[in-house]
C-alpha cells in the first residue's frame, strides 16, 4: 500500500497515494484541468504545456500530468494567468497546424478542436508558421499527415512502449521536429505492423486509416457488382455509442439493417467464419496435442500480430496456426462456396469487410490470400469509416428497426462472437477442442480465467483422455513478447514450450480495442465493449462453434471435413520472414499445405 499525502486542489482537501500525479488527483474529485497531450492510458510526455497549474511556493506553473503530488501541496488549477498561458499555448499550436477541420477525418473527435473551442481561443491570433509537407501515404493501412501533428508523442509511446514495434520516432529538432519512420522511408518501409494503435491515440487527424469508402460506395452503386459484406465481432458492440446509445450496446440487428439500407447486396457476418476458424484451428490444435508436439500452437487471426511475428519472431512461424483469419476465410468462401451456391460469377462479387482494424487493410492486400482465384477480400472498412458511411446515408441508427442477416454465411454462436475480446479465441477453441478430443460437450463453457484485461493470462484445462492442457493469452504486442520470449527460452532449455496453446492479439483488449475503432478508444471503453461481447455470448442459443448449423453445412456441402484437402487449400495460409529494418519480405518461411 503506497503512502498517502494530503493535497489541496482549488481549496478541496484530499488524501491520495504519493505516487499519483496532480492531474490524476484532480480527475479523482472531478476537477478538470485542460489538457492535450495527456492520455490516462499512456505515460505522460509533458509535451503540450496546456495542463499547467500553480503550486504554492513555485515561481512558475508546473505540468499537472507529470508532477507528482506531495504532502501539503496547494494547487490552483485556474487563474487569470493560467487561462492566458493556456490560450496562448493553444494559439501557438494552432498557428503551426493545418486547420482544415470540416474535411478532417477527426472532425468533431479532435481533442485539439474541442480544447480550442472550450478555451475560446482565437485561431488567428498569431501569424501562421506552418510549413506544409507531403503526407506519408506509403502504407496500405495508415496515413500520416505531419501537418496536423501537434508533437504530443502519444503515437511514439504506444508504438514503442505498448506495442514494442519501434516504427515511429521523433526526427530533427526545434520547429522542424516531426514524427517519422527511420530514414524517412515511410510507414510501408518500416517495421510498422499496421495495428493502428497510433491512429487510436492520435488526438488530431494526423494519423488515420487509408480510407476505402469511396471505392466501396462505387461498388455498391454499380449495378453490375454483387457486393457482399461481413462484419467483425467487435463492430456490433462499438456502434451504438456514436449514435447516442450507451457505450457497449449490443446492436447486431441494427447493424444488419443499416448495411442493407446502405445498399449491400448480401449482408453476412464474420462471426460465422470465426466459428469456422475454430473448427480448422481447433482440429489443428487437437492433432498437435495428440501427436505430443513440444512446440506450441499460436492463434493467427490478428494481422498485426502476424506481421509482428514475421518481423521479430520468424523462428516461431511454424508454431503459428496456418488457419487464415475469419475475415480471409470469409473472403475466399464468398468467391467460391457462396458464388457457387448463389450461382453468381465470382468475378462480379465484391467482398467487403468491416473491421475494427487497420491491419486488415494490409492483410486483404497480401498477394498469397487469393486462393479463390481472385483477391479474396476486396475492401476493408474500419469501424470509423463504417460510422461515416452510416452518417453519409443519413441513417438514424439508434432507431432503425432490427433486421436479420442474409442466410448462408451469417449464423454464429457465442464462441464466434467472443473472438472480439482478448481471450475469446482461446475460450472458443477450448469449448470445441474439448469436444473434438472427448466427443462430449463441456458442462461449464465459461472459461473465466482467460477473460479480462490482465496483460498475460494463463490457465490449465483438464481434458479427459489427454490430461492437462496449458494455455496462455496475451494482448498488446509488448505482452506478446513476454510470452514468446518464454516460449523461446523453454524450447531452448527444456525442448518444450510452457504452454500447448497460445492466443495472441496485437491490440490491447483484443479486437474491441482495435486500431480501426472509434476515436476515444481508451482501455476503459475496451473493457466495456469486451463485457458486451460476453453478454451477447451468454444470451445466444448456441455457444459452441461445432454446433453452428451453417458451419456444419459448409463442411457437408463444400469442404468435406476440417483440415480436408480443400479446407487446407482455401482456408489455410503460410508465412514470410521480414526485415526488422523495413518490414519487407526477405524469405518464405513456412509452406502452404493443400
Amino acid at each position: 500500500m503506497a503512502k498517502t499525502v494530503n493535497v489541496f486542489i482549488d481549496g478541496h482537501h484530499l488524501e491520495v497515494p504519493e505516487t499519483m500525479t496532480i492531474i490524476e488527483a484532480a480527475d479523482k474529485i472531478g476537477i478538470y484541468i485542460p489538457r492535450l497531450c495527456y492520455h490516462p492510458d499512456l505515460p505522460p510526455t509533458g509535451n503540450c504545456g496546456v495542463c499547467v497549474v500553480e503550486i504554492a511556493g513555485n515561481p512558475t506553473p508546473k505540468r499537472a500530468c507529470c508532477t507528482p503530488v506531495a504532502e501539503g501541496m496547494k494547487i490552483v488549477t485556474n487563474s487569470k494567468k493560467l487561462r492566458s498561458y493556456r490560450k496562448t499555448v493553444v494559439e501557438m499550436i494552432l498557428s503551426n497546424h493545418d486547420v482544415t477541420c470540416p474535411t478532417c477525418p477527426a472532425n468533431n473527435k479532435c481533442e485539439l478542436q474541442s480544447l480550442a473551442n472550450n478555451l475560446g481561443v482565437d485561431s488567428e491570433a498569431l501569424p501562421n508558421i506552418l510549413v506544409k509537407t507531403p503526407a506519408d501515404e506509403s502504407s496500405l493501412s495508415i496515413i500520416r499527415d505531419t501537418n496536423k501533428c501537434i508533437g504530443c508523442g502519444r503515437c511514439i509511446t504506444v508504438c514503442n512502449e505498448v506495442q514494442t514495434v519501434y516504427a515511429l520516432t521523433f526526427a530533427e529538432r526545434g520547429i522542424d521536429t516531426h514524427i517519422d519512420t527511420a530514414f524517412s522511408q515511410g510507414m510501408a518501409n518500416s517495421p510498422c505492423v499496421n495495428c493502428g494503435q497510433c491512429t487510436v491515440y492520435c488526438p488530431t487527424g494526423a494519423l488515420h486509416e487509408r480510407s476505402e469508402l469511396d471505392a466501396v460506395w462505387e461498388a455498391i452503386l454499380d449495378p453490375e457488382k454483387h457486393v457482399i459484406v461481413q462484419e467483425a465481432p467487435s463492430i456490433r458492440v462499438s456502434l451504438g455509442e456514436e449514435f447516442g446509445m450507451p457505450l457497449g450496446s449490443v446492436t447486431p440487428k441494427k447493424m444488419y439493417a443499416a448495411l442493407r439500407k446502405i445498399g449491400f447486396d448480401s449482408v453476412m457476418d464474420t462471426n460465422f467464419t470465426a466459428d469456422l476458424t475454430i473448427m480448422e484451428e481447433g482440429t489443428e490444435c487437437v492433432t498437435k496435442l495428440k501427436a505430443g508436439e513440444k512446440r506450441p500452437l499460436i492463434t493467427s487471426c490478428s494481422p498485426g500480430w502476424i506481421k509482428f511475428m514475421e518481423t521479430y519472431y520468424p523462428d516461431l512461424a511454424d508454431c503459428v496456426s496456418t488457419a487464415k483469419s475469419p475475415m480471409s476465410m470469409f473472403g475466399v468462401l464468398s468467391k467460391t462456396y457462396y458464388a457457387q451456391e448463389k450461382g453468381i460469377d465470382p468475378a462480379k462479387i465484391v467482398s467487403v469487410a468491416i473491421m475494427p482494424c487497420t491491419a486488415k487493410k494490409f492483410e486483404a492486400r497480401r498477394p498469397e490470400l487469393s486462393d479463390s482465384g481472385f483477391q479474396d477480400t476486396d475492401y476493408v472498412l474500419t469501424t470509423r469509416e463504417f460510422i461515416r458511411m452510416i452518417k453519409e446515408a443519413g441513417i438514424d441508427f439508434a432507431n432503425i428497426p432490427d433486421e436479420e442477416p442474409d442466410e448462408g454465411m451469417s449464423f454464429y454462436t457465442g464462441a464466434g462472437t467472443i473472438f472480439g475480446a482478448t481471450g475469446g479465441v482461446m475460450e472458443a477453441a477450448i469449448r470445441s477442442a474439448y469436444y473434438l478430443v472427448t466427443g462430449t460437450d463441456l458442462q461449464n463453457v465459461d472459461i473465466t480465467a482467460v477473460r479480462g484485461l490482465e496483460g498475460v493470462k494463463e490457465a490449465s484445462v483438464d481434458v479427459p483422455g489427454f490430461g492437462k492442457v496449458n494455455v496462455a493469452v496475451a494482448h498488446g504486442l509488448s505482452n506478446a513478447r513476454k510470452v514468446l520470449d518464454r516460449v523461446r527460452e523453454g524450447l531452448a532449455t527444456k525442448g518444450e514450450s510452457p504452454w500447448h496453446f497460445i492466443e495472441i492479439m496485437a491490440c490491447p483488449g483484443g479486437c474491441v480495442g482495435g486500431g480501426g475503432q472509434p476515436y476515444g478508444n481508451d482501455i476503459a471503453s475496451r473493457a466495456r465493449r469486451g463485457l458486451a461481447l460476453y453478454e451477447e455470448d451468454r444470451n445466444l442459443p448456441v455457444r459452441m462453434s461445432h454446433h453452428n448449423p451453417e458451419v456444419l453445412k459448409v463442411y457437408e456441402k463444400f469442404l468435406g471435413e476440417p483440415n480436408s484437402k480443400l479446407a487446407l487449400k482455401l482456408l489455410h495460409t503460410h508465412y514470410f520472414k521480414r526485415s526488422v529494418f523495413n518490414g519487407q519480405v526477405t524469405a518464405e518461411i513456412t509452406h502452404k499445405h493443400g
Partner: protein
Amino acid sequence: MKFYRSHILVSINETSLAAGVQEFITALRNELAKNDLAEEINILETGPLGFFGRGICLTVYPENINYEGVKIEDIPELVQEHFLKGRPVKRLMVGVTEKFSPKFNYENRIVLRNSGIIDPENIDDYIGAGGYVALEKALTNMQPNDIIAEVKKSGLKGRGGAAFPAGLKWSFTSALDVPQKYVVVNADEGEPGTFKDRLIMEGDPHQLLEGIILCARAVGASKAYIYIRGEYKLCIARLEKAIKQAYDYGILGKNIFDSGFDLDIELKIGAGAYVCGEETALIESLEGNRGTPRWKPPFPGVEGLWKAPTIVNNVETLANVPFIIAKGADEFLQYGTPDCPGTKVYTILGDVAYPGLCEVDMGTTLRTIINDYAGGMKKGFRFKAALVGGAAGVILPDRLLDVKMDFTSLNQYSAVLGSGAILVLNEHQSIVDLLWSILRFFRHESCGKCSPCKNGTQQLYQLISKIRKGNGTMEDVNLMLLIAETMQQTSFCALGQSPIMAVRSAIENFTDEFIEITKK
C-alpha cells in the same frame, strides 16, 4: 635538475593552435639552437596564459613579460633583442594601462591559478603546484560526510547557471543507499560567448579530475563521465592524457591511495546540441537517446543516469573543490560575497580592448570587469549595452553598469549571471539585431519536444525578423512579450523558459529603438 636562465611559456590553446603555434615553437627552438641558447632558455608549453591576447601569446620568466600576436617572422628579432641582448621587444608586448595589466588579472584566482603557469599535459607539474593534495587529505583524513560538510560550509554554488548549492546537492545523493551512483561533469559548454570551461580544462585538466574524484568520494559514486563538447578537441586530448596519467599514478582506478575507494572516469563526446547542456537532456544523450529533457522531479540526484542517483556538476564548480578541500572552506569564504562566496570566471567579448577571460571575486561590478580586466572599451567606442549570461541572459544598459556580478544581486534586475559570458556592444550596434540573433539561435537550438518552445521560438524569430525589416508594429513587439512570457511559464525545460530574459530586457531597456523601427 637542469638550470635555465629564462623560461618562455607558450600558450597552447585553440586560438594559438589556429594561429600555427606548433610551427612557431619548432621555429623558435631552431632559432634558439642557432644562437647557442638551447641550454639556457627553456620553452614550456602551457595552457591559456594569464591574459587573453590574440594569436600566439608568450610569457617570459623571470622578467614576466607578456607578448601577444607573435609571428614566425618575429622570431629572429625576439631572440636577438630579448634573449641575447636582454631588451624586450616593445611592439609585441601586451598593452599596459594604468588600470589594466595582465599581472593584475592573477590576483584572485582559484580555478585558473595554475593556468598558463604549469604544463597541463604533465601530471608532475600539477602535483608540483600543490595538486592532488586535497585528494590525499580527503582519502586519508576525511570521511565522505566531512567532504560534503566542507563544501557546504564553503557556500559553493553551481557555476553552470542555476546556482544551486553544490554541497546540498551532494548531500541528497550521498544519503541514498544504492549500489550504483554516478558523477557526470557537464562540459558541454554551449552558451554563446562562453568558453570558460574550455580554458579551465585546457589550462589545468588535473584540477578538474581532482574535483571529480573528490565529488565521487563524497557521494559514493564509482563511475564518472565527462560529457564534453565535440568541438573541444584540445580539451579532449588533454583530458585523455590526464586521465591516463592519473591511472598510471594510481589516482584513478581501483583502491585509490589504499583507501578502498574505486573510481573510473570516462569521456563522452557531445554532438553539439545546446539543449544537452540541460542536465536531464545531457543524461538522455549519455544514455544514447535523443537529447531531450526529462521532467523533474525526480531530480537526477535521485534518479539520473540509467535511473541511478547522479550528480551533474559544471566544470567550473568541480574545479573549485580541490581548493576548498586543500585550503579549507574558511579560506574560500575570503573570496566573493557572503551570499556568493568564491570567484567567477568570465569570458568578455565584443567591443572591449582585451576580449578574453578573467577570474574575479563574486560581486565585482560589471564596470570593473569591463574597465579593469578587459582594458575598457575599444578605442573610439562608447559603451551601449552588455549581454550578460549568453543567449539565455539579459541585455543591460549603461545605467546598470554598477550592478554587482553575483547570483543574488543580478536577481534583483531579473537578470542572471548564467554561464558568465559578457558580450559588450558599442553605441553603433542595434539592439534589434542583437535580439534577432539571439532568437535565431533559440529557434535553431530548441529541441522541439514541447510545444511552447518549439512553436514559440519560431514565432519569436518570425516576429523579430519582420520588425527588423521595418515591417513590424508595436503590436508585434507586445506579441513577442506575450509569447516569451508564455514560454517562460509553460516550457518544459530551461531552454524555452529563457528567451523572455533577452526579449524583455531588450524591449524594456531599449524601448526607443523598437518604437523607432516600427514607426514607418
